[in-house]
């Protein structure tokens, strides 16, 4: 029943998703030509769309990051002075071909990393823990990875709450000058850090009380099994990545 409501991407084995993300992000870092990076981005988007991932909702959530990427694009375009001029006012070169290429590479790389991360985001954290353990990663290490992933949204929520609380007590963040804003934001980091440490402390006590690491081995109620499709992905993706690296590199 649970399986019926899942998207094709969610149905994939977590190991396949990790492999896909690893291969796509490796390609994004290995290549720097905008045309190739654009191709990788299209391929990544194709996987997400074929897997019926909620791309539109995801784009809404990362809107702030998209502005940052746009900002990076402009910075790269304007500050790289070498290369053939594309936009020039009198003797002042504004945009060069090389600047544009570097800017496009940076933006495309970031977008590929973000979208390939979305493949991972379609899975449950506990599934990745299980996948890592079944890949013979030590349980403690896998558990730490899982905790880090689980804590990120909680930290984000804490930061947002503290931010709202300060505003509710009269802090007009939009109107204060940049330096003051920075000092306010630094001040707000204090409770976020304190809250995170407190949460870690409570969690470690809870783990101790439930006899974490009392026995060297653990048994699992659920065992992940690879479907034929998953096996194909696990085989094809590294081979194709290697081939692309050799052919286009």
């Amino acid at each position, binding site marked *: 029943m649970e399986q019926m409501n899942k998207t094709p991407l969610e149905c994939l084995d977590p190991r396949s998703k990790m492999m896909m993300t690893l291969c796509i992000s490796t390609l994004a870092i290995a290549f720097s030509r905008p045309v190739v990076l654009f191709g990788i981005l299209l391929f990544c988007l194709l996987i997400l769309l074929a897997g019926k991932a*909620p791309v539109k909702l995801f784009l809404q959530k990362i809107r702030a990051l998209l502005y940052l990427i746009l900002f990076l694009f402009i910075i790269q375009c304007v500050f790289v002075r070498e290369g053939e001029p594309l936009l020039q006012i009198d003797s002042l070169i504004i945009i060069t071909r090389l600047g544009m290429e570097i800017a496009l590479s940076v933006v495309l790389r970031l977008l590929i990393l973000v979208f390939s991360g979305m493949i991972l985001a379609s899975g449950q954290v506990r599934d990745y823990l299980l996948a890592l353990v079944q890949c013979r990663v030590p349980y403690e290490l896998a558990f730490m990875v899982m905790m880090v992933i689980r804590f990120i949204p909680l930290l984000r929520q804490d930061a947002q*709450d503290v931010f709202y*609380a300060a*505003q509710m*007590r009269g*802090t007009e963040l939009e109107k204060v000058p940049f330096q003051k804003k920075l000092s306010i934001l630094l001040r*707000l980091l204090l409770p976020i850090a304190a*809250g995170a440490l407190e949460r870690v402390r409570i969690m470690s006590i809870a783990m101790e009380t439930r006899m974490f690491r009392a026995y060297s081995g653990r048994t699992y109620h659920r065992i992940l099994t690879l479907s034929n499709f998953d096996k194909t992905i696990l085989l094809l993706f590294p081979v194709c990545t290697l081939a692309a690296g050799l052919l286009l590199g």
Partner: protein
Amino acid sequence: MDLILENLVYSYPGSRQAILRGLSAKFSCGAITALTGLNGCGKTTLVKNIVGILRPKSGRILLGGSDLTSLSIARIGRKIGCLLQNPSCQLFSPTVEEEIAYGLNNQGLSRALVRKKTDYYLDYFQLSPYRGRFPFHLSRGEKQRLVLAAVLAMEPDYVLLDEPTASLDAYWRKNLGKYLRKIQKDGCGVILVSHDSDFVEEYAGVELIMEQGVISKEINLADGRIKNGADE
């Protein structure tokens, strides 16, 4: 100065189901109004809409005739003080004393007045012995009292308290009730979101019951009169 909610509609991003479904209500200055309802009926969502953390999809929130939906959280915060469910999320100062003084400084009060008010609220909520302490080292009940003190010190037109008695012992429950009566007499409107029916019955004048994103009943707790569909 009444606080009027008109046809508020709100749904969380990505969700097709609205949490607030055309909710209308009226809160009066100088009155304690309780907002009750089952878990998940939208009480906290309504609170967050009123203080500007969430923005309604449609509808208006009027305070003294002016619409709050377009104002920043900070500007709403000067008129409506708010205590959220988890007090730890509302503490961000290095000491207890500075926590109370934070909002007062933002109001542009003189240093002497900030000091005087801070001392008063530290005394009233019996937090003076902890004035130099880091707020995160207080117990949950003490944190609750500290946030209450910080919110009430700003003397807003309305205070919105989400489960204010959740971590308070009987002594502090009674003290809070007494304080709410006092500010009510001074003309402050109190909106109490609570599951503590004893506290509501003892201190609130009107109880609004929320059900499926609207106010389904309004009970006058003094004479027991019930008005169905208060949102009409």
